[in-house]
């Protein structure tokens, strides 16, 4: 049994998203294992980013359930009851389940602790690298500043928290190799560094699940390699599970533990990288062959 079956962190069930008449995602179910790097792949227009937008609350799915676990595995038994209840969160004995489809985008990040990056990088260009990382720690800092009141009056409690948040930012800047550029505007960074900064910024929200939308797009081979190291370290050192959309097969095959393949909004394959690589349906989808030819290819692969 693989980890995504024994220790699921996120369960997507029967997810369907329609825009007017267009069905972008059709009855999609998959799980993300705790501690896994899960890749969501598929040809252009397969609906991958839409899945991301549903998970992170930017779109409200037409149908389906997206559940995330904090704490013990046993909490999954409570899922039917959590669904029956009206709330977005179901807690029991220190563990909890979050029903992400019921939450607006900012709450998904603030409470359910799912962070994301964007296909077209969305940094705060006119703010410095350090400020970008501080904005990511907005919610705890807001609390420490007493919703700004204590902060204006200059209470020392806030100063301490601000110092801690700068230390955290420094830790991440070290990790992504941008410590020397901390005081430069984010918009001045080269493309690859902007990608890394966006990942670090997402990590500053202390997520349990990090969703990356094409993190390797536009990177050169060396930067791509650095990205692999960073993602592995996020998984092992930080204990954050990673869900990523990627086109670069070398990245997908090398670092992911679990691959889910989408085509036209439907799941066509799900398994370990080697299993997926050998799946004739996947090959057909990527090469763009007709359905009746799939059998021929299957026969070819088998021989």
């Amino acid at each position: 049994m693989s980890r995504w079956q024994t220790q699921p962190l996120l369960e997507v069930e029967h997810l369907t998203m329609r825009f007017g008449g267009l069905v972008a995602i059709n009855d999609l179910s998959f799980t993300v294992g705790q501690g896994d790097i899960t890749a969501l792949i598929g040809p252009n227009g397969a609906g991958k980013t839409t899945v991301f937008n549903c998970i992170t609350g930017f779109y409200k799915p037409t149908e389906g359930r997206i559940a995330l676990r904090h704490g013990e595995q046993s909490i999954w038994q409570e899922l039917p009851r959590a669904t029956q209840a009206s709330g977005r969160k179901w807690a029991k004995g220190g563990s909890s389940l979050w029903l992400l489809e019921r939450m607006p985008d900012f709450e998904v990040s603030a409470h359910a602790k799912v962070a994301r990056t964007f296909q077209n990088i969305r940094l705060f260009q006119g703010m410095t690298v350090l400020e970008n990382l501080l904005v990511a720690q907005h919610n705890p800092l807001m609390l420490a500043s007493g919703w700004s009141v204590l902060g204006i009056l200059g209470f020392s409690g806030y100063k301490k928290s601000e110092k801690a948040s700068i230390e955290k930012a420094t830790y991440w800047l070290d990790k992504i190799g941008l410590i020397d550029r901390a005081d430069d505007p984010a918009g001045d960074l080269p493309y690859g560094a902007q990608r890394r900064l966006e990942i670090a910024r997402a990590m500053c929200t202390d997520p349990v699940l990090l969703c990356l939308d094409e993190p390797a797009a536009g990177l050169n081979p060396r930067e791509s390699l650095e990205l692999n190291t960073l993602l592995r370290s996020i998984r092992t050192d930080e204990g954050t599970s990673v869900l990523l959309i990627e086109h670069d097969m070398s990245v997908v095959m090398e670092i992911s533990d679990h691959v889910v393949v989408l085509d036209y909004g439907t799941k066509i394959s799900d398994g370990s990288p080697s299993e997926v690589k050998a799946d004739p349906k996947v090959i057909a989808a990527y090469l763009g062959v007709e359905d009746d030819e799939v059998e021929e290819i299957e026969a070819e692969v088998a021989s």
Partner: protein
Amino acid sequence: MEVFLQQLINGITLGSIYGLIAIGYTMVFGIIGMVNFAHGDVFMVSAFIAVITFLIVTTWLGIGSIALALFICLIAAMVLTSIWNWTIERVAYRPLRGSFRLAPLISAIGMSIFLSNFVQVAQGPRNKPVTPMLTDVITLIRSDIYSVTISYKQIMIWAVTAVLLMGFWYLVQKTPLGRAQRACEQDRKMASLLGIDVDRTISLTFVMGAALAAVAGVMYMVYYGVVSFSDGFTPGVKAFTAAVLGGIGSLPGAVIGGLLIGLIEVFWSAYFTIDYKDVAAFSILVVVLIFMPQGILGKPEVEKV
């Protein structure tokens, strides 16, 4: 019933004027995504041009025929207002294309202030009344208490608006110029790659908007018989409301929105209180923008993440 019918006639007349101004807002927004704040004042300038031309024609040239005089007024106002708006675009908006996003809007606000004060300084702050014209009425329903009438000037406003709108519709839908304009609305960069002179097309959009605003200006002069330098702001906001209500970017939408705003204003004044009629117009603007920003005929906007 009689009152209703009479207000319907008045509302359609007023609505035609708003619709003509609204087209200018909608076209400019469609092509460069900017609220041309000064458009209401361009309309006011055109009404002044109409008054001045009317005086030249009737007092200096001594033309007695009102129809001929108004025709000359219409042509002069359309041509001169087009030149005004072309120059305004050239001076105040074109250099800011592709710059800081707020810059053209601020520049347009400045232009609006400039235009109304220019007219105030050049022509004086007093109202400019012209001799009432086309005042004869046709009585549609005769009754002792309330007669429903339609005046010649209302008939003229309806007729001229309808004819010019049809001509304009043909221009936009069937001519290469209209095609270039619609192409620029879709994708300016692509249009330019395909050899369309984007700057020229945008200039022509301003010219067309001004020409229609000038028609509205002449109609305004005929209908109310008085113009003032401050007449740009409120009709401008109402016409903008009409453009948004109809669905900004949509030409039929602008006309429908204009008629609706005209009707709402007239009925509000007739059945509620005239004091708050402008409050009603602004409130509609707020409600429409908040609850149906795509308007009646506009396309809904999907947030791109």
